[in-house]
């Protein structure tokens, strides 16, 4: 076959891969076809990668070094990814996704940088190449360092509290300005541009841009609190897609452009959905949150007194209810209490209590994370109910059991003038009785008091989510 023919076939294989990504994402519409969708997408990926290798072999351009790099590098990276993905606990999954996102961004940045070094001084070094190289390198580097910090925060290696960056806003703005300056230098200095720069100078400028972008990623994520990490990971996921598309422009490869653009759009939509659910703009989150920080403030506060509830009283309320709604939140994910909550629910169901779960769109550490955690704990899928779907049912509910959720249950969101005004909430206060399992009276991420706790219908059970649930289960069993 002539080389032109081979390239045509390879191009079609790339197109097939891109189509598989679109179909795969589309099938993720419903739980019934989602797994098949993911597999179609994986097959598309395999087709695209194998076609690339076949093409290079047929061109005869693969030297021993290149073959070694591809085989050994692929085995190391693929092996590590496979092992991590097989062994990770489902609660630790968000940080793993963040780590995979980091390496993806890193790879996109490296592809752009390497290509730029190669085309130096050739006619290929055009103004448009310079623009896409810098964009790919910058976006890729920001996601690489930013996702690593996000992953560290979720793992607990780095404090989940907002960490101020020295110099604050000025540092971030300065880094951004440096990047733009570097971009201008490289574009003006490109082949056909008005500036003539020594190749060494250009490489140093690119190195400077990458260093500034890496620092920017760190400075961007450090001041954001742990509860906002879902939004940040989603945003960084979108960035990586865009970086991959930019790398695709640099090496002029259609499948990179299409797949990268798809992911850029996916991450963008997810980020917006999550920010909407918290009634905050993406800029507001990136600019550093509510200033309150995570629950450090103690004491019942001005709003009124709270009623403390013992384990036995709570168990009796639950066991003799006819309808119970469990409201799991961030605290449940942190305490890894998903199995404990399922055990309690099973105990209650064996006594004839109707149990369902109210899932706020931003419950957990990632959008939909709570569904995955509860699914892993064998909670039947139909028992997980979305916010709009379950809110009308709180009026008919005997007991609402809130486990580690705070701001998403705060009735003050319905009134203007509160930090969370307008945020959609679960109507927990409409239930006949409310039990809140919470470690202390600490405030939620928004740093405001929760009126739900001072409601006369509410009893507070002060305990760690996991221990509290285990104690409740034991108490219900003993009744």
């Amino acid at each position, binding site marked *: 076959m002539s080389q032109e023919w081979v390239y045509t076939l390879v191009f079609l294989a790339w197109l097939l891969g891109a189509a598989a990504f679109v179909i795969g994402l589309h099938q993720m519409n419903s739980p019934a076809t989602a797994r098949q969708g993911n597999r179609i997408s994986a097959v598309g990926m395999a087709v695209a990668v194998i076609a690339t290798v076949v093409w290079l072999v047929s061109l005869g351009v693969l030297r021993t070094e290149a073959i070694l790099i591809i085989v050994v590098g692929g085995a190391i990276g693929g092996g590590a990814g496979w092992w991590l993905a097989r062994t990770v606990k489902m609660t630790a999954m968000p940080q793993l996704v963040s780590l995979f996102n980091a390496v993806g961004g890193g790879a996109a940045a490296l592809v752009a940088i390497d290509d730029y070094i190669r085309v130096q001084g050739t006619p290929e070094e055009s103004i448009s190449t310079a623009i896409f190289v810098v964009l790919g390198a910058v976006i890729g580097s920001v996601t690489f360092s930013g996702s690593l910090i996000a992953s560290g925060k979720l793992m607990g290696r780095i404090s989940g509290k907002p960490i101020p960056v020295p110099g604050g806003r000025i540092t971030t703005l300065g880094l951004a300005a440096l990047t733009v300056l570097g971009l201008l230098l490289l574009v003006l200095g490109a082949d056909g541009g008005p500036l003539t720069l020594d190749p060494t100078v250009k490489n140093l400028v690119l190195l400077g841009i990458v260093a500034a972008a890496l620092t920017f990623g760190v400075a961007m994520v450090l001041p954001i609190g742990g509860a906002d990490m879902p939004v940040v990971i989603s945003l960084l996921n979108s960035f990586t897609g865009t970086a991959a598309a930019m790398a695709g422009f640099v090496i002029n490869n259609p499948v990179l452009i299409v797949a990268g653009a798809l992911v850029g759009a996916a991450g963008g939509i*997810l980020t917006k959905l999550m920010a909407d659910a918290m009634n905050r703009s993406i800029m507001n989150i990136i600019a550093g949150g509510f200033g309150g920080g995570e629950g450090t403030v103690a004491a019942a506060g001005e709003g009124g007194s709270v009623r403390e509830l013992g384990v036995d009283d709570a168990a009796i309320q639950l066991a003799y209810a006819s309808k119970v709604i469990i409201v799991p939140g961030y605290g449940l994910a942190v305490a890894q209490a998903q199995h404990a909550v399922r055990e309690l629910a099973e105990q209650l169901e064996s006594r004839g209590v109707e149990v369902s779960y109210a899932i706020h769109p931003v419950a957990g550490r990632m959008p939909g994370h709570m569904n995955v955690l509860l699914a892993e704990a064998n909670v039947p899928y139909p028992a997980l109910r979305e916010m709009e779907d379950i809110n009308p049912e709180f009026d008919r509910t005997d007991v609402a059991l809130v486990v580690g959720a705070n701001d998403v249950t705060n009735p003050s969101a319905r009134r203007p003038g509160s930090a969370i005004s307008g945020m959609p909430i679960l109507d927990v206060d409409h239930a006949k009785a409310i039990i809140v399992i919470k470690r202390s009276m600490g405030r939620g991420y928004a740093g405001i008091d929760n009126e739900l706790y001072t409601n006369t219908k509410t009893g507070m059970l002060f305990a760690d989510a996991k221990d509290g649930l285990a104690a409740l289960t034991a108490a219900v069993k003993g009744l």
Partner: protein
Amino acid sequence: MSQELLTAIALFVLAVLVGFEVISKVPATLHTPLMSGANSIHGIVLVGAILIAALAHDPLSYLLAFIAVVFGAMNVVGGYVVTDRMLQMFRKRETPKAPAAEPKGQ
């Protein structure tokens, strides 16, 4: 601008629109698997890493290409495997509720 570049830009814009259209229909319950699935798709950068490995001809570019291949392969394999694990859990349920929920926040 060259014809090649213009075609590439058209491809990019259309793919973004397809992405919006396909993804805005996914129910919130599947957002985590979706994020993870999208995360594996940008592992396509592995193709780019393989291409630059083929063009590498000095120690620096060998190193850059090697790291890029390791990173890309980790992104692809890890991403798909972890997404499959997540979705497997959803599949174990008896009959999933047919229309899970309306997509939110248009």
